[in-house]
């Protein structure tokens, strides 16, 4: 690894409770560091704590280079953190909780906010808790409306094999993203 090489980072984004921290924990070399505090908004109905800055994990490659894994806060009021964290990243993994009130609207928010990164690098969408809520086709239709082609997979963020399948799709897109 050449000294001074820019750090590599992957961003995990999505609404609160979608499974970002869980997904990072599935692949990180150590349990993720988090910045969780007690939730005081409607999220408190479903979760005790919410991320207000980031989750942080790492993967160390064979040559010693580190890939940083960042989970963003879920609420839109922290969109400034989305921008800070996603700058110069390899790409984006969006996790959507299919049991939320309007998961399609959730995806729409993240696609709109991260559009530049999606177009220039790589992104995938993982749908968690998919046994309820909109069928997968609805997500493909939404992306088609936005003229945005990306993988959409049903995943259980607690299952490492699912997270790896999602990452396989991500790396497949990243490999051929035009420089």
């Amino acid at each position, binding site marked *: 690894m050449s000294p001074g090489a820019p750090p590599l980072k992957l961003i995990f984004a999505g609404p609160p409770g979608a499974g970002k921290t869980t997904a990072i924990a599935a692949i990180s070399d150590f349990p993720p560091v988090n910045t969780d505090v007690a939730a005081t908004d409607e999220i408190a109905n479903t979760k005790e704590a919410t991320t207000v800055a980031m989750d942080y994990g790492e993967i160390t490659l064979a040559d010693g280079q580190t890939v940083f894994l960042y989970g963003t806060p879920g609420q839109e009021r922290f969109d400034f953190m989305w921008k800070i964290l996603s700058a110069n990243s390899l790409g984006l993994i969006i996790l959507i909780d299919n049991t939320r009130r309007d998961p399609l609207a959730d995806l729409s928010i993240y696609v709109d906010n991260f559009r530049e990164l999606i177009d220039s690098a790589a992104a995938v969408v993982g749908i968690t808790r998919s046994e309820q809520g909109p069928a997968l086709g609805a997500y493909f239709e939404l992306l088609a409306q936005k003229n945005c082609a990306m*993988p959409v997979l049903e995943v259980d963020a607690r299952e490492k094999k699912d997270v790896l399948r999602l990452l396989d799709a991500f790396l*497949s897109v990243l490999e*051929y993203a035009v420089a």
Partner: protein
Amino acid sequence: MISTPMTLAAHELSRKDLDVLRSLLLLYRSRLSRECQLCCDDDDADLHLIDVDEAAGRKRWETLRAHKRCIVFSRTAVEAPLLLGKPLRGPALLAVLSEVSYQTKQAAEAAQPDRMLTGTHAQLVATSPATGKQLISLLESGTINSQVRILLPGDRDDGQDDLWIDPQLRQYLLGTALARLRHFLRLPLQPEQIQRVSRQEFREQMQRVRPRTLTRLQWFSALACSDGELLPPLSRSCPVQLTAWPDMEEHSPSFFRLAGLLVKQAVAFDGIIAMTGIDSGTTADFVNASYRSGLMRQVAARESVGSGMAFAGRNIVARLRERLGI
């Protein structure tokens, strides 16, 4: 598609909702069995979409519902035969318009008692063009254009449900993995295997089996019928590109890589093989499946064809794959 367009009058919709409605009608035009022409506040229209969340809309609904077919558009669960929830979404709109088309068709058929199709479990006529073709061909050609149930072979006591298809909602229902149907999908279907079902029956089956995108069925069916050679309409020298990621049931690293390339770039057949290192047969199967399921387009050779990430970028991907074991 029925030739006479249906007029749809929108009442009391916001500007934003009207714009969305217009876009969706255009987007789904090819999927509707009857073209839908949008007009505003025309009391003589065939169908009326009314936003009842405002007083003016509720008043309009009260006036029209007695003698006109109305779709109620509301944020809340209103008691109405045809209801569209807010915000306006494509799949929901398509479902309601399909229901209207179905009801219109049912009414028309009821007026013609000498037709060969009777009841709700009628089978397709033996002389119809639906016979002797693989399922993918029937889907491609639009021969299956209403809700059907395809009887699957095997012991019916083993709990395996049949294959239900709704081409208008673009969904299918199957209680098992598609992989189990790989051989069946290569066989020509016989008329006695295809039964028409009602929208209500399809809905009841949806309570038992989660719907999947029809594209997934089409893609897998086309894959099952591909023999490792590029299909005649496709040219080896013409670049192709995916318009959407295929909804693949199984995890195939090779197919993921092919999709990853073609979602980002338009590449000719030999170029795909050179860039991915994946064999010709697998590549042809993938391209055929994507093409037949409507996810792949051929582009003019003069459109820009990228060469992929810089070497350093590919190296990172390779090292990440090695570290993660994928």
